[in-house]
């Protein structure tokens, strides 16, 4: 049995070696001795070991991993310069991956992207492992692309911003103008970074494990408003206590109730009408913002856009 497994493993390694050697990207072996090539603090155990082993080990400084050969060497060089400019300006890592990966659900793409990012040395200075990864899956049956964010990049590139970016680059990607699409992507990311963390993400922070969490912020306007009303009412009650003198408007206390005598007392029903309306079942357009991180096999959080097929 063991020998069969070894043969299969060797076959996989050999086969992937051939595939990869066609691309311009260098890959390395993962071995137990060097913590399977994972430099980050992630705990490698029996649950995620196969994920680690199935993830290409690459040189994180290359930034562009074009397994599907969608860019020419020249384009790669230009984009590489632009990416480095983005990184040095923002301190957020940027990774481009093209791969031909068969899949049944979008989750497969997401898992691939998260593992690729997590099990290589991406993330600048490892603080929050902040970075953004653009994945192009050129799988012939259903081409797919999406943007994944890690660490503090989740704050800058909110779901809504990622969705807008995906819309911007859709036509270029769909038509195969990858250089233009990726160029637009880098420009969008740069300008989003320049405009700062969007309001929708201002109530969030990223914890040590890369998950978004909500931070408590004092809702000043409601607090001031409610306190103001309470103060006004209590002051009015106190002021009112000092005013004791009132003009009498009624004489009810002098009424002898036994003398109330009706000679006519009728409640006549005249007409009635019923109106109705159908309440709309949707509770208004929801923004669709997913302000929570998903967990990768490493146990670390990341966020993503909605993804596009095409």
């Amino acid at each position, binding site marked *: 049995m063991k020998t069969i497994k070894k043969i299969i493993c060797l076959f996989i390694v050999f086969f992937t070696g051939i595939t990869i050697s066609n691309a311009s990207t260098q890959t390395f072996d993962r071995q137990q001795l060097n913590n399977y090539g994972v430099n980050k603090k992630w705990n490698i155990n029996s649950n995620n070991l196969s994920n680690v082993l199935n993830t290409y080990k690459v040189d994180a400084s290359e930034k562009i991993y074009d397994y599907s050969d969608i860019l020419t060497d020249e384009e790669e060089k230009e984009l590489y310069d632009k990416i480095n400019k983005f990184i040095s300006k923002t301190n957020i890592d940027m990774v481009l991956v093209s791969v031909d990966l068969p899949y049944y659900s979008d989750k497969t793409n997401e898992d691939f992207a998260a593992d690729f990012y997590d099990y290589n040395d991406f993330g600048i200075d490892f603080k929050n492992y902040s970075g953004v990864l653009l994945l192009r899956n050129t799988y012939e049956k259903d081409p797919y692309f999406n943007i994944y964010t890690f660490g503090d990049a989740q704050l800058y590139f909110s779901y809504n911003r990622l969705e807008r970016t995906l819309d911007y680059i859709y036509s270029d990607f769909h038509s195969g103008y990858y250089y233009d699409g990726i160029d637009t992507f880098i420009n969008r990311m740069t300008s989003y970074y320049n405009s700062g963390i969007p309001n929708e993400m201002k109530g969030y922070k990223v914890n040590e494990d890369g998950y978004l969490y*909500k931070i*408590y912020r*004092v*809702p000043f306007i*409601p*607090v*001031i408003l*409610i*306190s*103001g009303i*309470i*103060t006004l009412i*209590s*002051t009015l009650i*106190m*002021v009112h*206590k*000092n*005013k*004791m*003198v*009132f*003009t*009498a*408007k*009624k*004489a*009810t*206390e*002098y*009424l*002898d*109730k036994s*003398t*109330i*005598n*009706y*000679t*006519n*007392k*009728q*409640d*006549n*029903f*005249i*007409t*009635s*009408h*019923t*109106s*109705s*309306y*159908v*309440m*709309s*079942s949707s509770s208004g357009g929801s923004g669709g913002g997913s302000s929570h991180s998903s967990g990768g096999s490493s146990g670390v959080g990341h966020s993503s856009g909605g993804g596009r097929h095409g």
Partner: protein
Amino acid sequence: MSKREAVLDNKCPNCGATLAFDPKIGKWSCKYCDGVFTLEELQKHNNASSVKNNANENKDDVDISHVSYHCNNCGAEIIADEQTAATFCVYCGNTAILKSKLSNKFAPNRIIPFKTEKKQAIEAFKKLAKGKPLVPKDFVSEKNIEKIRGIYIPFWLYDIKVEGNLDCDAQKISTWTVGNTHYTKTSIYKLYRAGSMEFYGVPVDGSTRFANDIMNTIEPFRYEDLTEYNHAYLSGFYAEKYDVNSDTAFEDAKKRSLESAKEIMMNDSLGYTSKVVTQNTLSPSITKTEYILLPVWMVNVKYKNEMYLFAMNGQTGEFVGNIPLDKTKAVVYGIITFVISVLICILVSYLIFLGGGY
């Protein structure tokens, strides 16, 4: 030339000293010889209580505007303005009951004698700050009381029958939901009411010198203590005669009884969402008018050069009056309330945040 009119005083049958009505025991007591007298005992002697002095002489239209009064004790002129009906001689302190202002058309039908004493009014004033956070700290001090007088105030009492129709347009609105359809049913009704009701003893202050609102606020008086009028009850107190005649005073009682009658008739059927009066023919008629004197302690307070008026119901002890505001306290309490509210609101919002909402 002014005409001299009789002044009554009330002397102790034993020693001849001034005899005052004692609200505590409801009798007349002499401070000098400790004699205590009931009305029957007093009436055996010739003083303010006597049958002769209380008899109505049926002299119509006595012109009392040019009348002078002289103290029975020392002969000095009694200083009294037109409304004053009972006072004291400023020279000797003797009781001075100005008979002509309490006779004929000014003769009261009945009186509620004082049941409370001066010191009770002072105590009530001193307790005024209780439960009222914005009373200036040194306001309720006895030393601020400038003047405190027990006064019999003239009141008109009306028995009123209100009769007529009251018609309303009324609506009942009910709402319910089936599935995601919301229904609103509006039912329209016409309400017809015709009938009558009677009010007994609606009081109206008959003196312009006392503000109606403060007199309204010390209501109600318990009429079971109303007793036949006798001048002797006034000894030891001030008294006023009316200067608002019955017809004028009735306007106030009319308004109040009509408002009450309308409210009673409108509210006798429940369950309507709204009612609009379409016809109101309710009208009051007087079934009985009485002129009475009611006991009131008037307390004049001077605080920081401003005058404040308080009144205590001389029968029930109800003490009323508007108290000045301590603005500094108001600001301080306002700030404290605001700060506490802010802290509580923040705590609540934080708890909601922890609970996962918000």
